[in-house]
């Protein structure tokens, strides 16, 4: 129902499903259609809002398409506010997509207007030395802008907690994914709720594959391995590791949420919704395949 053919190119109308990690699954599930029906352009006219996870996942979708086909998808009919946002977050300059319309320079968001509430999309290279430089850069920007990004949550320790989280999750890209990735962060309002969202993702080998050499995980589901990585100090490279386990402990302390998606599995831990006795961990293994690992960490206030 989303495919339109104009005679020369096939255009896919994306549904307005860029509001959160769960709704974006509808767009990920269109990935197969994009390759099967040789879609050349994505029509964004129906998109009314795009949050950081959806933005980065869309960027990966474009990058994967470019890697698979050697051709860049076109983005068409981008609503002005979405276009301004994507340009402001350096989405467009990543070069994974071709834009059919150019935005007048006068309409672009100025860097000073809301610079302090975001960390623009930053490449996390797959090679150690470059990656470390990039992670240090992200943390340096975060420290400068933390007062604004964490405006609704600020206390003495939360900035340091987030430095730990950024460091741990970004390192997983060059340590485990065998690919490069992206990081971005933003605070925004959704209705009456304030959200700060840190998003880190790659399109590498994914969590299951990175544990491929470990026999004890051979019969464990993808979501089960993600859960294990969150709750137990396991590592695919060493006898034991700390990263995701430490991140999970910090987010529990901050009463936030973590969403990890890898291949066709996901785990969502919602400490913000936890009530006594109620489950706050949600596992899935029936998602549309999407390479790599995508992580969204949020605080709500």
């Amino acid at each position, binding site marked *: 129902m989303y495919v339109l053919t104009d005679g020369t190119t096939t255009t896919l109308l994306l549904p307005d499903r860029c509001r959160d990690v769960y709704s974006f699954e509808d767009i990920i599930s269109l990935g197969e259609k994009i390759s099967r029906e040789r879609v050349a352009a994505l029509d964004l006219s129906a998109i009314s809002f795009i949050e950081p996870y959806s933005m980065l996942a869309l960027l990966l979708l474009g990058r994967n398409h470019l890697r698979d086909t050697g051709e860049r998808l076109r983005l068409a009919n981008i609503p002005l506010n979405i276009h301004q946002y994507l340009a402001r977050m350096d989405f467009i300059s990543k070069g994974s997509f071709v834009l059919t319309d150019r935005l007048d320079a006068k309409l672009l968001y100025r860097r000073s207007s809301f610079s302090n509430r975001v960390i623009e999309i930053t490449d996390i290279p797959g090679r150690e*030395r470059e990656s470390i430089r990039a992670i240090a850069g992200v*943390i340096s920007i975060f420290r400068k802008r933390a007062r604004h990004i964490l405006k609704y949550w600020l206390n003495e320790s939360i900035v*340091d907690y987030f*430095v*730990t989280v950024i460091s741990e999750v970004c*390192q997983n890209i060059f340590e485990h994914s065998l690919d490069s990735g992206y990081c971005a962060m933003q605070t925004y309002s959704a209705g009456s709720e304030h959200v700060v969202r840190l998003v880190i993702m790659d399109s590498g080998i994914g969590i299951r594959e990175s544990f491929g050499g470990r026999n004890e995980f051979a019969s464990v589901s993808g979501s089960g391995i993600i859960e294990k990585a969150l709750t137990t100090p396991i590592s695919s490279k060493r006898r034991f590791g700390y990263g995701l386990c*430490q991140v999970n402990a910090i987010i529990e302390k901050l009463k936030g949420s973590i969403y990890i998606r890898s291949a066709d599995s996901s785990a969502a831990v919602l400490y913000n919704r936890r009530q006594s006795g109620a489950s706050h961990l949600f596992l899935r293994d029936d998602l549309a395949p999407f390479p790599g690992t995508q992580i969204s960490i949020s605080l709500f206030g």
Partner: protein
Amino acid sequence: MILQIKNTARDLKIRLPDLITRPVGRRMYERTRKSMAHVGDGEVVLVDFSGVQVIDSSFIDEFLLRLIEDSREESPVFFVKLANITPIIETNIDSVFSSYQAYNERRIAVVTESLTAMNSYCIGIISGHERDVLDYLRINRVAALGDIAAFVGMREEDALPLVEGLYGLRVVRREHSGPPGRYEAV
């Protein structure tokens, strides 16, 4: 010996206030070990983290864990003590130590100069009796085994493995100059 971490980082052109990632931990460790070339047997190495806000688990694994493991070698025996650590540094060290202990079946602990959030002068999993011994020595500086045993309500022969265990963890020192069977705080 006092190790000013910020000076080592400056020499290596590593920007503070955060020390993160394994490669940074490795570089800091290698430089630190070089500067410890002349550390004496039984010496306390005070690792001063002033100017550092965050160290992550990768850094801890590559730097602090290796330093503590080295301190347990027979020659030279030395003792690591941490100063000016922030709450997040303490949290991250505690988390790494817990994982280390769970997977290596080997205990690990380190003495701190200031009181930690866990109301202790030590990070790591130690028993209540062991904590009592550390507190006793911290106040008295030096004590004979008999005094320690009396303080914790044990016979000397039962207290000996307890105190020697703390020595093995390098959180208690054997007194070098005095008669045998005397211990001192790190």
